[in-house]
């Protein structure tokens, strides 16, 4: 069984816009799954369909093996969620807001409500603000209260949509620590973000969305393997080096003139995709061809490069 699985899940808005386009998610139980993509790539619409808030145009989805949206009332109490930012009653205190959501849950035990609310508030560090009105909460407190609502009961799956949106670095760190803690308890975590850095540190798996399509899904090592390593040679004679690399059958050989980069002579050189060639062989060939090799390296692309490659220029890597 998977925590989340979808098959051909599609959502076309009434205006005709295809927001989610035949995606097949497979989120393993116990994973921390980062759902990445630029703003507007269909992440939130997907999450809304997973939670039964929006109905798919076609395709199916299931949570913890239960089909959605039909099984909403039987499975959602095992799933905690934060969708598109926190939402509470501004005129109620933090604890009263949690009590409100708990009261709406027909499977929650009213006898333990008070204890569970206190525990959830304690876990997110809001116990001191329990009696404060939500209206007076800071953005970070609101976000944490929303996570507390997700923790009111033991959950098997937590779905967090952009949990650090609008938070300062301190708040972001706190939320990240919370997610780690939740995952350590064995809960599957599905966290969406448009920030690579946010999920890179905590996720075991990632799915990458681009304009409604799931363009990659797998573990982080799998994602790294999709990137082609390049050989990079530093030399005073880039053109000649690039020719040798091409001659060796390496793809995408490029020469970098000194003037192209920040006028630093040492940066001049050539690079090409290594492919199946052995770096030792390539280096030897270069030397044999009379290229003055100042430096030689095999470079793997950073995750960030891979993401930009997957999601296109619009991807906001820096935040």
């Amino acid at each position, binding site marked *: 069984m998977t925590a989340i699985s979808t098959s051909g899940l599609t959502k076309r808005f009434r205006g005709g816009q295809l927001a989610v386009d035949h995606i097949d998610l497979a989120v393993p139980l116990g994973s921390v799954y980062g759902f990445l993509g630029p703003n507007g790539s269909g992440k939130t619409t997907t999450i*809304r369909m997973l939670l039964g808030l929006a109905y798919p145009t076609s395709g199916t989805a299931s949570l913890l093996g239960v089909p959605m949206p039909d099984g909403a*009332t039987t499975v959602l109490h095992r799933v905690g969620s934060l969708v598109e930012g926190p939402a509470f009653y501004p005129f109620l205190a933090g604890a009263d807001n949690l009590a409100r959501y708990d009261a*709406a849950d*027909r499977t929650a035990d*009213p006898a333990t409500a008070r204890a569970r609310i206190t525990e959830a508030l304690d876990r997110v560090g809001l116990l001191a603000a329990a009696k404060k009105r939500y209206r007076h909460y800071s953005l970070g407190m609101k976000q944490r209260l929303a996570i507390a609502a997700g923790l009111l009961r033991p959950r098997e799956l937590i779905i967090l949509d952009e949990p650090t949106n609008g938070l300062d670095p301190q708040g972001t760190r706190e939320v990240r620590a919370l997610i780690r803690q939740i995952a350590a308890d064995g809960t599957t975590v599905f966290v969406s973000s448009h920030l690579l850095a946010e999920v890179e540190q905590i996720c075991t798996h990632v799915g990458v969305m681009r304009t409604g399509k799931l363009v990659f899904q797998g573990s982080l090592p799998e994602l790294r393997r999709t990137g082609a390593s390049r050989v990079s040679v530093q030399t005073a004679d880039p053109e000649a080096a690039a020719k040798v690399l091409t001659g060796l059958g390496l793809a995408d050989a490029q020469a970098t003139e000194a003037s192209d980069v920040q006028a630093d002579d040492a940066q001049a050189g050539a690079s090409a995709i290594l492919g199946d060639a052995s770096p030792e062989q390539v280096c030897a060939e270069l030397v044999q061809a009379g290229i003055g090799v100042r430096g030689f390296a095999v470079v793997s692309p950073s995750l960030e490069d891979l993401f930009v490659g997957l999601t296109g220029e619009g991807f906001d890597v820096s935040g």
Partner: protein
Amino acid sequence: MSAGRFYASELRLVLLRRRNLLLLAVTAVFPLIIGIALRLAAPRPEGGDGGTGLAFFNQLAGNGVFLTFIALSTLLVLVLPVVVAVVAGDSVAGEAGYGTLRYLLAVPAGRTRLLAVKYGVIVTFALCATFIVSAVALAAGAALFPVGPVTLLSGTTVSLAAGLLRLLFVTLYVTAAMAALGAIGLAISTLTEHAIGAIATLMILVVTSEVIDNVPQLHAAGPYLPTHWWLSFDSLLRVPVDTSTLLRGLLSFAVYAVLFGSFAWARFTSADVTS
């Protein structure tokens, strides 16, 4: 199992809102004002002026119980509909506006269950408002005017206890009218995430219906209007009780409640929640 708990939570949420409490307070003040104004303007009992032309007003000088009927019929024109419209229009649209609707559904509250609880609380609130009007009017009437056996509109006199029993039925009839209005408000509320818009739409509907009901040329449409039967509670103040009018009124309320309740359900259980 804990539908009662959800209902209680919803009722607390509605009853503890300062805005709603204020509405109930205003509702309570109106019968007092009307009572005092009529006491000051009342013709001396021996004067027998009776120039107002309204049946209730003529009876008031002789019996304070009639202040309840005067208050109910006066407040039914605008005040009670506003009170119900605020709570009904806010019911779903307000949650959508706060964004709490998506979290309630993710809890999961269940769409049908949520709607049922919302409507239950609307009806409870309408009941509170109506009974507050009757209770305050009765107390004010007793304080400002003589109280005794009740002479009904048909001229028959019944005991005070029998009169009060009729008052109870009148209040319940008015509650039924407001419950039907609440169903219309609930339906409108599922169409928007702007509570104010839903409240205003419902009030425009009420006023339009009342205006059409008063245009002689549109007489034929009258019985089908949502507001047409509201004041028919005077049927209860006759001997024998005019049951055919009363039943047609109740039927009208039931039809409106079922029609708009079904619409609200169909809409709410099939629409995407995008707020």
